[in-house]
């Protein structure tokens, strides 16, 4: 178990810089999720921590010790890969014991650890099977088992659930979380799935184009997104954005609607509001011309346009709605629930 520091970390392939000055402090036992769209450099960052990619500049420290120059084997880490990367020619037991044998543990100790991990992951009855005789979920467990038996300082997960079906993914997600909490091992988890990120992480590092957009708890990211990117990436359905002219605590939206906002900012800005924060209100300032309904059961998503404009908006209302396309619904916006971002840089404006 150990803390991890990322200091001014840069990765370049030739002249192309793909990760730009990443900073991060990860506490002992924390579960960190690195999340971002594909191609944002999140897997590269994880592979640098694992030692599978070289560090161009900056420093990675695990347990206070610089590991830039160390081989993956000497970093005391375990990694779970997206395609599981099980050794196809070895049985489940041999797969899990491989790393222990290399570390020259005694036979009894290896057996004890493998049995113990198999017990935790409920794969005891498969110990003598080959990976190809297992289902995706079972392979996933074996991959986890191979990581657990090593008793490493750090767990690294590279999109481990993306090859599973939706139901299994939810189940494994909970199990990974439970397992990590009971073992208390510092973990870094890479995913492009924001729901996975929100539910698993103690803290989330949102990466975009090789830059850290925001690093904080799921609630911080949801309540106070640092940029338009984070605001649009975290939360489902995504936040609505409208161009606005802000003056005296009021935002003037396209089509003439005026809504109250927080803070002292004035001038051009991007106004953001989450679909679930639009409150149905007969006298509200925002009028949505409904195009389409999405019934989710617990709530209904109203897709439409801001009246008199082409700006699309989504509102989420509880229960079942039966508005016909073309009807007009009005919503109010609580000032403390709205967000303002700089119109050009996309950064959050102080409120």
């Amino acid at each position, binding site marked *: 178990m150990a803390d991890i520091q990322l200091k001014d970390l840069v990765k370049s392939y030739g002249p192309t810089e793909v990760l730009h000055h990443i900073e991060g402090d990860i506490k002992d036992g924390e579960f960190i999720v690195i999340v971002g769209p594909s191609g944002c450099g999140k897997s590269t960052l994880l592979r640098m921590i*694992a*030692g*599978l990619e070289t560090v161009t500049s900056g420093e990675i420290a695990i347990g206070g010790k610089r590991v830039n120059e160390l*081989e*993956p*084997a000497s970093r005391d*880490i*375990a*990694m779970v*890969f*997206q*395609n599981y*990367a*099980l*050794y*196809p*020619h070895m049985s489940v037991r041999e797969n899990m014991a*491989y*790393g222990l044998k*290399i*570390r020259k543990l005694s036979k009894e100790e290896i057996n004890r650890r493998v049995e113990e991990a198999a017990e935790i992951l409920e794969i005891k009855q498969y110990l003598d099977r*080959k990976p*190809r005789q297992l289902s995706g979920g079972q392979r996933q467990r074996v991959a986890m088992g*191979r990581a657990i038996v*090593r008793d490493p300082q750090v767990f690294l997960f590279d999109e481990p659930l993306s090859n599973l079906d939706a139901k299994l993914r939810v189940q494994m997600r909970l199990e990974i979380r439970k397992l990590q909490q009971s073992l208390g091992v510092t973990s870094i988890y890479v995913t492009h799935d924001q729901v996975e990120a929100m539910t698993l992480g103690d803290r989330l590092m949102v990466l975009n184009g090789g830059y850290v957009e925001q690093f904080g708890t799921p609630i911080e990211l949801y309540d106070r997104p640092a940029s338009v990117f984070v605001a649009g990436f975290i939360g489902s359905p995504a936040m609505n954005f409208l161009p606005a002219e802000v003056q005296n605590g009021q935002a003037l939206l396209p089509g003439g609607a005026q809504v109250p906002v927080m803070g002292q900012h004035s001038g051009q800005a991007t106004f953001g509001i989450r679909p679930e924060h639009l409150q149905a209100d007969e006298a509200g300032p925002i009028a949505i011309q409904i195009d389409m309904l999405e019934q989710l059961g617990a709530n209904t998503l109203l897709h439409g346009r801001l009246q008199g404009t082409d700006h699309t908006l989504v509102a989420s209302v509880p229960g079942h709605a039966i508005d016909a396309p073309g009807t007009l619904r009005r919503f109010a916006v609580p000032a403390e629930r709205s967000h303002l971002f700089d119109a050009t840089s996309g950064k959050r404006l102080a409120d």
Partner: protein
Amino acid sequence: MLKRVHFPSSLLPYLLVAPQIIITLVFFLWPASQAMYQSFLIEDAFGLGTEFVWFENFEQLLTDSHYLASFQRTAVFSLLVAALSMGTALILAGFAQRVVRGAMFYRTLLIWPYAVAPVLAGALWVFMFNPTLGIFPYFLEMVGITWNHYLSGNQAMALVIMAAAWKQVAYNFLFYLAAMQSIPNSVIEAAAIDGAGPARRFWTIIFPLISPTTFFLLVINMVYAFFETFGIIHAVTQGGPGTSTTILVYKVFNDGFVGLDLGGSAAQSVVLMVLVIAMTVVQFRFVERKVEY
């Protein structure tokens, strides 16, 4: 629903396969049956009289100590050729996989020897190892080894093994490289994280995973060493000194066309034919074992 293609004329499909069938009949089946027939005959050296003797030629072969010695020699020869060429190819492929820059260039160079005709390959090695002119005997002399494959049977054997193996390295290299590249990278990385160094990764992960390729190449190389090394041996040693490099195919040629024992030679080639059929069966039965990834 299976869709069937109908040709307008019923003659066309036969015409289309005819060239293949004619070639097979004229160049393979007819000579094979001739050899079979010949193996039941004893003919005098001038071709004046022939006698049908059933299996007498085969009986003689099985009791002929020269033939049995040649059999053993061939086994040693082909095992060593297969081991040497596959071992070299495996090492080269292992290195080639790690090459990042100029990989195409390097691989192309390694494939060249495959395009060299057997007799030319043999000639190359004859020049390099010529006891009076060759460069290698000169070097070997410096470390106190006298090289003369015209006198030493073992040295002659070593030379044809090297020449035959060298020519096959390129082929094996291609297959090994393809096999290694089909192993998912993450499996190797997982082993690295598990603490395995490069050598250990190779022997415990890569080598077992390419074992189907190894088996396939073993059969191919054995067949090659058994049947396709005639040119090299003819160019390098002519089966000598004595009979120390006379492997089965060379003995067929020697007994038939030099010794003019056509019946005995035909019987030998029938034995070889049975061997090659057996090897082909082995290959088809086992080579398509399921690959484990």
